[in-house]
C-alpha cells in the first residue's frame, strides 16, 4: 500500500511499495482525497499524477449546521463568541469542548477553570463540528467510556 504525506496540499513524500489499480484511492488526508491516475508509478517510485479533490466547504457547513441544531441557545452563543461550549455529563461533571479535533476537551473544576485535558476523538476524519458533536454526545451519555478511551492530562 503506498503511503503519501501531504502538507498544505503539496506532496511531501511518496513511498511506493506495491502496485495500485487505476483510480484507486491512495491517500486520504484531512478533507483531501487523492487518487492515482494509473499504475505506472510503481516502476520508478515517483509520485503519480494525482487528482486532488478540493476540500469540501459543503462538508464543513453541513457539520456546522448539525452541531448548531444540537446545541442549546447558550451553547451556540459561546460557540459563536468563544469557539467553545460547555456540556454536563450524566454524573454532573462539566466539560469544555473547544473548536477542533484533538486535544480540545477540558474538564472544568468548580471554579470553571480547566483541570484536565482529555484527548479522544472519532477514529475517522470528520469536519471539526462533527468531531465536537461526537465528543458532546459521548460525554453526555457515557462519560466513563469517554474517559477510559481518552488520554488525560492534569493541568
Amino acid at each position, binding site marked *: 500500500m503506498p503511503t503519501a504525506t501531504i502538507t498544505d496540499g503539496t506532496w511531501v513524500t511518496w513511498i511506493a511499495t506495491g502496485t495500485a489499480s487505476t483510480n484507486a484511492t491512495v491517500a*486520504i488526508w484531512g*478533507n483531501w482525497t487523492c487518487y492515482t491516475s494509473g499504475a505506472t508509478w510503481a516502476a520508478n517510485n515517483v509520485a503519480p499524477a494525482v487528482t486532488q479533490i478540493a476540500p*469540501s466547504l*459543503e*462538508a*464543513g*457547513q*453541513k*457539520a456546522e449546521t*448539525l452541531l448548531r*441544531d*444540537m*446545541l*442549546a*441557545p447558550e*451553547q451556540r452563543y459561546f460557540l459563536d463568541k468563544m469557539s467553545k461550549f460547555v456540556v454536563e455529563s*450524566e454524573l454532573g461533571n462539566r466539560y469544555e469542548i473547544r473548536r477542533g479535533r*484533538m*486535544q480540545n476537551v477540558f474538564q472544568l473544576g468548580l471554579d470553571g477553570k480547566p483541570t484536565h485535558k482529555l*484527548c*479522544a*476523538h*472519532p*477514529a*475517522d*476524519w*470528520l*469536519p471539526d463540528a*462533527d468531531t465536537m*458533536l*461526537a*465528543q*458532546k*454526545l*459521548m460525554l*453526555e*451519555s*457515557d462519560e466513563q467510556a*469517554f474517559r477510559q*478511551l*481518552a*488520554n488525560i492530562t492534569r493541568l
Partner: protein
Amino acid sequence: MIGTLITLDRGGDSKLIWDREKPVEVDNARRMFKDLMAKGYWAYAVRTNGEKGIHVTEFDPEAEKIILAPRVVGG
C-alpha cells in the same frame, strides 16, 4: 411520522429518512443502523436544541432522530 438516521462522515453527514408507516423504509434504516454498529459506530437518540442524547444499541423505529458517530479513540 418520520425518523431520521444521521451518519457523521467525511462529507459532513448523511441522512436516511424513514416513514414509520412504511415497513420497507423501516427495514432499510434498521439495516443501515446494524451495518454501522457492526463497524463500531456509536448511536445516540437525540432531539434538537441542546437536549442530551441517549446512547442506544438497538434501532428504534419510533425514534425521532438517531445520530451515528464513528468510534472514538484516544488521541
